[in-house]
């Protein structure tokens, strides 16, 4: 009885609210409709990971095979390899990337010449706005065997040409270098904003007390950056199984020689869709990635709430 009245009252409220604010509902509806169609309708589609997908039968008409797709992926070792690669790359991007961003933010804040600061800040941010396709062009321009700039240099020095595109090991460094190259400016500005927000008087006071520049960096700036660093690191950890498909695909493409060291979850899923039409296998990997991602974000948020309650997302 109680429940029924509650529900009635509740639904009455919704109707009333919609009538009262119908224009506002109407204004919000395109975006809500968008999220329902392009995000929420897609979610049950993850079911395709548990079937033997047959295009003509559709997702829910295909035969249910349970965890067989996952079993296969674990047995053939693919899942382990791409998880390991994705995790390691992202971990290096995150740790090395943040350290470099902090160091550069501090260095930039130490620079007095305004013109130099302005120009270099713009230049460092530039790579962030270039499409990864262009970055792929840069890699081709630098590393290709016949005409690449590095090989041009090597031959002009009388050395042997180097075949970059058939050596998987070296791409680990190239990928990390390009990632750092494109992400440093962006992250640096985030940290720079925190440094600029530090109260000037504190530095004055430290200076009066005889603190050297190095001591001011070590005992004032760095500790002040710690909360931002921890927060970015923790949320980065939440997305550690999400790859930078753009970067990897444009640098590696479909060069299977390089896969052992460069294949990540996103490139694998992409290939299972485009190259092999193996929808169920790809969806199984994608589902595993999304689920792990969600669990990681929830865990990380829990940790953030313990360390810095104000910074938690929910």
């Amino acid at each position, binding site marked *: 009885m109680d429940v029924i009245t509650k529900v009635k009252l509740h639904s009455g409220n919704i109707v009333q609210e919609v009538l009262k*604010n119908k*224009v*506002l509902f109407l*204004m*919000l509806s395109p*975006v*809500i409709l968008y*999220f329902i*169609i392009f*995000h929420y309708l897609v979610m*049950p*589609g993850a079911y*395709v990971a548990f079937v033997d997908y047959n295009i003509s039968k559709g*997702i829910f008409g295909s035969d249910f095979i349970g965890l067989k797709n996952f079993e296969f992926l674990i047995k053939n070792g693919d899942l382990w390899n791409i998880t390991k690669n994705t995790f390691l790359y992202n971990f290096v991007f995150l740790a090395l990337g943040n350290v470099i961003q902090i160091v*550069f933010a501090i*260095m*930039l*804040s130490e*620079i007095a010449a305004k013109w130099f600061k302005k120009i*270099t*800040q713009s*230049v460092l*941010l*530039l*790579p962030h*706005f*270039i*499409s990864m*396709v*262009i970055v792929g*062009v*840069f890699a081709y*321009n630098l590393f290709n065997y*016949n*005409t*690449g*700039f590095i090989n*041009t240099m090597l*031959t002009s020095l009388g050395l042997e040409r180097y075949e970059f595109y058939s050596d998987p090991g070296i791409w680990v460094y190239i990928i990390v270098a390009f990632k750092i*190259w494109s992400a*440093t*400016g962006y992250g640096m*500005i985030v940290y720079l904003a925190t*440094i600029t927000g*530090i109260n*000037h008087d504190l530095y*004055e006071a430290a*200076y009066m007390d005889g603190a050297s*520049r*190095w001591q*001011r960096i070590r005992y004032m700036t760095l500790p002040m950056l710690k909360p931002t660093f921890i927060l970015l690191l923790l949320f980065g950890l939440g997305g550690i199984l999400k790859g930078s498909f*753009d970067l990897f695909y444009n640098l590696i493409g479909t060069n299977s020689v390089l896969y052992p060291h460069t294949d990540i979850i996103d490139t694998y899923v992409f290939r*299972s*869709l485009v190259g092999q039409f193996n929808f169920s296998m*790809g969806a199984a990997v*994608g589902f595993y990635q*999304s*689920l792990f991602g969600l669990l990681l974000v929830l865990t990380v948020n829990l940790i953030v709430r313990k360390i810095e309650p104000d910074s938690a*997302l*929910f």
Partner: protein
Amino acid sequence: MVQIHNQKEDFGSIFIKAISYFCIACFALACLFPFVLMISSSFMNEQEIIREGYKLIPSEFSLKAYEMLINNSTALYKAYGVTIFITVVGTALGLFMMSMAGFVLNRKDFKYRNFFAFLIYFTTLFAGGLIPSYILMVKYLHLKDSLFAMILPGVVGAWSIFLMRNFMKAIPDSLYESATIDGAGDFMIYWRIFIPLAIPSLATVGLFSALGFWNEWYNGMLYIQTPDKYPLQYFLQRMINQTNVQALINQGVVIDAGELPTQSIKMATAVLATGPIILLYPFLQRYFITGLTIGAVKG
């Protein structure tokens, strides 16, 4: 760090400063280097590239690649057209939808705003994945080979909606109230009061959105089959990966295949695909930095 004036510089101070100038200058050069190399490679003579490879300083300055591209490549013009179309339509549509959503979600008299905000936010935590999205787009929405396949997936972003909502918080509620008393409806308040005040936020979100569409290649690769509908970046990517550049160039003009400047054309196309961003960058980067700093503070 904030500069302290009239301070006596000890050795450590000078050392830190010198290191800072040196490292920042080096990294800035490293950031510019690939661009410079790409541009100078595009002006190289094809024979020199084949003989000696891409160089930073070509021994002979040649405009041949650009001449070829501009005279022969209707495919390139079409790719430009597609990219301009998806950028303009996508950004305009996105800004309209997102600004309305941000406006509504900031209205304190809108009771379910937290519920809807969570509905939007949750999509950043869990996604169905590439394959279910692909099946939805192709099998159920029939968007394969449609320009809307490149517009719709990127038109609205959860982060941008929250950014807009946060901008709107700065606009005092009393403005809405007085407008309501004067008899303005909700949409009128949004259109006549809110939009003019929110131009900085529209500019920031609009720039990021336009940049996303300009750099779009992924959905083009997934969904577009007709070469006439390739966006610029995907066109470029195919050209780089394809040894037969001629296939992508208009076949109307007879060219000796041996003379076709394949290697310099690749770089010239890349320059033309980057061009507008590089040209606009000095004017836009102020907004980029504002956007980044605000985005860094939790959306």
